[in-house]
């Protein structure tokens, strides 16, 4: 190791310390505090707390709402992810085939990501409203009255929520995948065209394999995002989230803080948050294993 490298390493330390401090204060410390409180019966309004060992974790395993909330999480993760990546790839194909308006299309697809989730929920609340909502009015004007349903009733609300999640996130993942595509040299595509490959063949034989590492990162990011998703489901049914769409983050919020009829069990909420972290880690590891491929270099 050269002296200049050692000197540069030392030089890096003072630049890293501020961000490390921020990371420790705002992430490591709260995370460890959460783990600490998960072993206590703690309400959060005073320093009084009772050590109860792993009781909170044992309770969670027999808690019906914990399991139903986890199922909601998994539905959002699987179905939301399936449609998001399916559509993102469809948009990629279209994007590669068209010559004009690429910037406009990219901006339009990304637009929902810069809108507040609460605003998105209000917007879609109006669209889905069964009495004066845009969706049912469109169906009526098209003579499709038989398709009209209360989109936000207990039977349909999950599908409506997943639709809104897909609408919100597809542009973001499309842009991530597009960033991978932009790194593929044009010469590769030119060779393929000279060899007579169709756009579909080019997409599956060149684009997908060559952006696989970006796709893997995007999937991992989606797993994390979907499992800890809070704002959209929370705001989707007005001032108080309906139980049909309580996922684990909402349940944690309700247990710890809530509104109107709050529970104030910070310790138990922390235990479920620990479970959620473990679940996230498990899914991330599984996805990384399943999606690992040899990277293609060009």
């Amino acid at each position, binding site marked *: 190791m050269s002296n200049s490298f050692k000197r540069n390493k030392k030089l890096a330390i003072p630049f890293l310390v501020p961000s490390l401090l921020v990371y420790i204060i705002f992430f490591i410390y709260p995370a460890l505090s959460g783990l600490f409180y998960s072993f206590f019966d703690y309400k959060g309004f005073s320093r009084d707390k009772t050590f109860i060992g792993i009781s909170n974790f044992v309770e969670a395993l027999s808690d019906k709402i914990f399991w139903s909330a986890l199922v909601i999480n998994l539905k959002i993760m699987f179905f939301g992810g399936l449609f998001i990546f399916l559509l993102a790839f469809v948009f990629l194909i279209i994007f590669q085939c068209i010559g004009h308006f690429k910037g406009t299309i990219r901006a339009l697809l990304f637009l929902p990501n810069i809108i507040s989730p609460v605003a998105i929920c209000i917007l879609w609340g109006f669209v889905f409203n069964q*009495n004066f909502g845009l969706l049912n009015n469109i169906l009526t004007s098209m003579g499709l009255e038989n398709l009209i349903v*209360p989109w936000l009733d207990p039977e349909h609300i999950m599908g409506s929520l997943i639709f809104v999640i897909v609408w919100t996130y597809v542009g973001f993942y499309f842009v991530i995948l597009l960033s991978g595509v932009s790194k593929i040299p044009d010469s590769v595509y030119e060779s393929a065209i000279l060899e007579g490959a169709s756009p579909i063949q080019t997409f599956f034989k060149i684009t997908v394999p060559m952006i696989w590492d970006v796709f893997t990162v995007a999937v991992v990011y989606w797993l994390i995002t979907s499992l800890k998703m809070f704002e959209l489901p929370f705001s989707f*049914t007005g001032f108080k989230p309906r139980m049909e769409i309580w996922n684990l983050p909402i349940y944690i919020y309700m247990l710890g803080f809530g509104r109107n009829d709050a529970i104030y069990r910070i310790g138990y909420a922390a235990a479920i948050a620990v479970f959620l972290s473990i679940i996230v880690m498990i899914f991330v590891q599984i996805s990384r294993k399943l999606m690992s491929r040899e990277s293609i270099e060009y």
Partner: protein
Amino acid sequence: MKRKLTIVLLFVIAIAFAFPLAAGGSSESDEEALEFWCYWDKGHPNDLWMRQIIDDFEKETGIKVNYSNPGANILLSVAPAIVDGNAPDLIDGHCIEMIASLGNDGLLLPLEDLYSGTTWDGSGTFESQFIEGTTTQGMYDGERWFVPYCAHTSCFHYNKAEFEKRGWEIPETWDDFIAMCDELVAEGIAPIGLDNTPLYNAYWFYWFMERICGTGAFWELATDPTGAAWDNPDVLRAAQMVADVSKYFINGWMGNVWPAGQIAWAQGSAIFHLDGSYIANELFDKVDEDFEFGAFPFPAIEGGKGDPASKEISVMGFAVPKDAKHPDLAKKFIQFALQPKYQISMMETYYPTTLVGLDDEIPDYIKDVYAIITSDGPVHMMYDGLQSRGEWWSTVFYPVDNDLIYGNITPEEFVSRLKADTVAYLNK
């Protein structure tokens, strides 16, 4: 070079830590200021009302008020502040939420000395100015820690113009009410408009229990570890009535996300709406010009053991954290804010007063709810006070109550499931 870097680093760290300290730390100048954290979001009519009181208070007393708006989630801000020893001097909000969070643990200051003192102008005792039953909901060890500035009740709301048009009178009994609903159904009009929210869905079983079994019976269901209270046939009758009344709900109500259902009612899609008395505040700008807010209490039920005159009162108001640094300033402000002139201006925001003697000042749109609140009869808390048992209420009762009102289970299944779940919950 190394020394320079160290100096730069120390400077950066010092700046980084100095900012939050400067922002959040106390200084000499605010030592005598009242720290008031308010429930109302910035810009809400009640926030503007509160700001007017603060302005007047500061001018009249020379006491500075540091006013901030954590908003409806105020308790999320108050909790860490109390734990860190930085409790505000004064907070406000729903009494029931404070009972569950702070009141039951004795974390709020008793205000009996304030009640036994005088009104701001010294014309009478502070206590004597309140409507009966509004001051005793927030108590710990026999002492009151809450001072209410507005009172609410849940009741049926309707458009008086519609009643006049039909020549209807206020229904005295449930049978009268159902007869009106049947008439509407025959005309193809939806009788009851509502939003699908667990909180509002729970109104029905709660009110049927109140009228059929009486005050305290619902509370007993939630707190009886043996589950025997659920075996009372009247409980099944209340559940059956929930199942029966749901057929009068507006078509597709289960898809109504708040406030869609109440707006639909306000715009004439349904005739009755069971809700809190804050409804006029939420809907005043969504009704037609000829709409006249009317309200009547939940009707008496034949054979019911509950007092038909029993009325619900839920209160919003002030409380002082036990660790407040300036409790005397807080009490002084409360005394100041509870002057009749401020109650009159509060009623302009459609919120009913907690003070007596203002009958001539009550605006038309809250006259009926004020009449309910001040009527003769025993007082009970909203949902029989069960919101203070938040875990049972949210995780045991809500799911089964929703299933009943959705028609997913029979009244018999409702009773047996809740009995089993309650016993399991209370004995875990």
